[in-house]
């Protein structure tokens, strides 16, 4: 589904990613862990198509397409979803209207008819339950005045509505209390299927108690220095990131 080969990326001439290799297949959950500044969020941003980053080397293939050739909106329509670390507040843009527009853009791209107001609302009702988001939030402007936890839930709610093939969760656990974390994890787990995949980017092992990964990758200094089964996360938690700083990069 996703094939990242020798990915190098920089921002303002500063090299952040220095040769990432990653293969993700449908049905898999990958966790990408690493200390601050290792390049985790850069990887998420490059996948989603943030223009501030320049890819200097390497390739990304997504569902048979060259991802780097696609604009951010085209990636979304192809089925890529980024849950933002810091979802932005957009005063004046209604959450509901925005989501309806987004969903219908994606449906159009998939050759489906747009949802009318009634079907859209019933779909919303169904998905609201999944992330236990307060319905009144969706009557407000997008993320405006939302708490940190509400913003993260709203990200997962949008993900549930848009049904992506590949979801990238960028530190979705940061700033969440344990109850919110469980709700977010439950949402992700419920949406999991054999056809879609998830990349969980996180600093802490805690989230992985609730979203169980098939693979754990450790990112350090712009490279994946260690990959392994879910137990690797526990080992990291125990030994700390200093442990991997001495490790050799894998290729």
């Amino acid at each position: 589904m996703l094939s990242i080969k020798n990915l190098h990326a920089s921002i303002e001439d500063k090299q952040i990613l220095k040769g990432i290799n990653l293969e993700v297949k449908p049905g898999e959950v990958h966790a990408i862990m690493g200390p601050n500044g290792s390049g985790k969020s850069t990887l998420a941003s490059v996948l989603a198509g943030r223009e501030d980053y320049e890819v200097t080397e390497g390739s990304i293939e997504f569902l048979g397409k060259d991802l780097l050739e696609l604009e951010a909106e085209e990636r979304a329509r192809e089925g890529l979803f980024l849950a933002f670390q810091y979802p932005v507040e957009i005063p004046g843009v209604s959450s509901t209207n925005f989501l309806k527009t987004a969903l219908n853009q994606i449906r159009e791209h998939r050759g489906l008819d747009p949802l009318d107001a009634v079907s859209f609302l019933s779909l919303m009702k169904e998905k609201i339950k999944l992330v236990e988001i307060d319905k009144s939030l969706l009557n407000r402007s997008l993320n405006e005045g939302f708490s940190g936890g509400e913003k993260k839930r709203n990200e997962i709610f949008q993900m549930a509505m848009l049904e992506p093939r590949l979801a990238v969760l960028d530190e979705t656990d940061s700033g969440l209390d344990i109850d919110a974390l469980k709700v977010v994890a439950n949402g992700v787990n419920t949406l999991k299927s054999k056809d879609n995949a998830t990349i969980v980017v996180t600093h802490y092992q805690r989230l992985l108690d609730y979203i169980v990964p098939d693979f754990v990758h450790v990112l350090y200094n712009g490279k994946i220095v260690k990959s392994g089964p879910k137990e690797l996360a526990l080992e990291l938690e125990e030994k700390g990131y200093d442990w991997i700083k001495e490790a050799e990069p894998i290729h």
Partner: protein
Amino acid sequence: MTVASNSIDLHKNFVEQFGIFEKELNGKSLTDFHQTRKKAIRSFEQLGMPDRKTENYKYTPITRLLKKQFNFDYASPGIPAISKAAISELLIKGLDAYNVVLINGRFSQELSNLDITLKGLEITDFKSAYESQPDLVGSYFAKYAEFDKDPFTALNTAFSLDGTFIKVKDNLVVDKPIVIYSIAESTAANWAVQPRNLIIAGKNSQASIIENYIHHGNEAAFTNTVSEIIVDENAYIDYYKLEIHGDNAYHVGNTQVYQAGKSTFNTTTISLAGSLIRNNLNVVLDDEHCEANMHGLYLLNDRQHVDNQTMVDHRKPHSYSNELYKGILGGNSTGVFNGKIYVRQDAQKTNAFQSNKNILLSDEASINTKPQLEIWADDVKCSHGATTGQLDKEQLFYLRSRGLGEQEARSLLLYAFAIDALENVKIDVLKEYIDHHISIRLNR
């Protein structure tokens, strides 16, 4: 018809025109009314046309633009032919209203739609109002719009002949909005027109008034309009000024508002079309517990220039004013916002707020914004702020990352930016009308 070109001194030309105009009045030149006109032309002679050194017109090269473009014809203003069908195309669709139609400043009885059964509501042409009620009209006319301060107000006053007269009796709630369609018809020739409106809202009365300025035809039109609005005690007025139609329009407008105690005046000024727009909005709060809400929105493109000059004068204690102007400027457009707030020594416990926010869509667009607060009282709450920026890249990326195309995301964000300037628009049909034109503009 006298042609003003670069070689002609505009100032001299106007003064000469006044002589011709005066002769055509056929003996009516001895009335009090005409004495006011004469004072006004003398003020104009003294004030002269503004140039770059004139503080209030520093960023608006109005004299240069007028010299290049226009023919003036005040002496024999006949109403150019415009059909009922053509007018109906210009009306706000679905709005049940009292419609006044002014063609080049002249009240058209035939095109207006004024079937008034409501007792105490008077909507007539300005000309017959001052002929039939000279004392009443005389006691308000030119008493508020100060012709000794602004040359365009002086000009309009000197040449004042026709326009709209509205009087709402005490305690009357007007059942429908009143729309003044002020049409500058310039299909065959350039026109310069000077409508004059007088609106008197009695004690405890309520009304919605829309001034809709429309430029019709391909030739240039210059409108120099003055509206005096008197809001008596505890009256409640919603006032809208629309500049939505006509790319080749040049507009100078002076809205002069006088509020008595406990009155409310809400205004929304929408500027979307026109080569040059200068809106002067002056609100005087002359007693306690007045409220004035002044909103404005301007969306500019190409070489458009819009200049909003606002003034709110707090003269007495316990009054409130709130001002919000928003602008989106693309192309080579230029904008000016100058917001004056005066709080007089007597006006303790005044609350006065002002905000001007702008988004520049291109490197060539520019805005000059200037808040100007002069406060003589010591127990007041006043604030002002101005921002100018670009579209927020992070917001744009967020929307695109959810599948919205770039153009769609931009329109959505710009609309969201603009929308709170419309919060005083309370008539649904009008709101849809404005919304529709904003959307067209933002999707361009």
